[in-house]
């Protein structure tokens, strides 16, 4: 009887220790991120495109900055501006830290989006936004690299057309490693939280 009680106690304490260990273990594994962690699931930032000053730039030019990669086009009056305005507020909330962040707005409509138009467009949102364009092949290669997609919709009577495109915001650390994926629906505070963490950690994986 006494033995059985002791055994029960032992089992109980084992269970408690085990659950405590599991909890501790779980705590270690728990991600600090509020956005989707894509570390190791997406390739490093790599491209060769033309920026909104007409200069040829590569991903290496943005090493040392946390970058937010977003695909869009300037003739997109609703969702692209909403996303960029959203990111502008995030940048404002980051304060001084935002100097180490660049928004990379890659045009999926290189036919119409010249560097000059892109320059006016991105600067209407944030001084730390960069417009990037390139050959259709270069743009397509970059979207495929991040499993993003875009489709030019049938033209309208006046010759204009819309482009459907992926709406994700890919976040890379200062070493150009893919770290997080945000959607336009993610609140500004989640973006601010994760960007602060990424900027303060020095970008180390």
């Amino acid at each position, binding site marked *: 009887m006494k033995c059985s009680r002791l055994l029960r106690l032992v089992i109980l304490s084992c269970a408690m220790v085990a659950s405590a260990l599991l909890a501790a273990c779980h705590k270690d594994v728990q991600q600090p991120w509020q956005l989707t962690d894509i570390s190791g699931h997406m390739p490093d930032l790599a491209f060769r495109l033309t920026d909104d000053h007409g200069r040829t730039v590569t991903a290496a030019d943005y090493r040392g900055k946390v970058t937010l990669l977003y695909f869009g086009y*300037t*003739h*997109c*009056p*609703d*969702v692209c*501006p*909403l996303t*960029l*305005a*959203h990111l*502008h*507020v995030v940048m404002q909330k980051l304060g001084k830290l935002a100097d180490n962040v660049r928004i990379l707005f890659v045009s999926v409509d290189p036919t119409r989006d010249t560097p*000059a*138009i892109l320059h*006016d*467009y991105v*600067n*209407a*949102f*944030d001084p730390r936004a960069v417009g990037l364009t390139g050959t259709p092949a270069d743009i397509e290669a970059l979207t495929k690299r991040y499993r993003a*997609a875009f*489709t030019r*919709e049938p033209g309208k009577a*006046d010759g*204009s057309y*819309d482009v*459907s*495109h*992926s*709406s*994700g915001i890919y976040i890379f650390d200062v070493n150009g490693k893919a770290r997080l994926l945000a*959607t*336009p629906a993610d609140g500004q505070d989640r973006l601010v939280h994760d960007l602060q963490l990424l900027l303060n950690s020095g970008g180390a994986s």
Partner: protein
Amino acid sequence: MKMRYLLVMAATSLLPVANLQASQADHVTASNAWIRLLPANLPASGYVTLQNTALSTASLVSAHSTTYASVMLHKSAMGSGGMSSMHAVSQLAIPAQGKAVLAPAGYHLMLERSSHAVKAGDTVDITLDFADGSHLPVTFLVRPANAADPN
């Protein structure tokens, strides 16, 4: 007895139609009307909240403005895999005693080819056209590109 009940029902169901001597536009009020301005004469978008006080649906079918050569009713949609797309809409119903909201990432007026330079802080008049041929002039406030949604 049942027949009389049916007759009463039929008569009352006609009442809202009788009320419609006033046009759809007469029963619609607009609020929070604003335009997100984009640079370089790029297409802009107009947003507005429409409240319908009538006992029947009002249908917004088009809009026009002396400021923009083209005003089209559009809807943005988020498809599978996070694909964002935009398409023209032939009409937008404002339910009886309800409202319809034109807001970012949803219904909006796509505004193209402005006749003169529009700048933040300006107001632009856009007339909303309803299915019964009635019209509602609305004054939109022009906000800068990076304005947060005020609603």
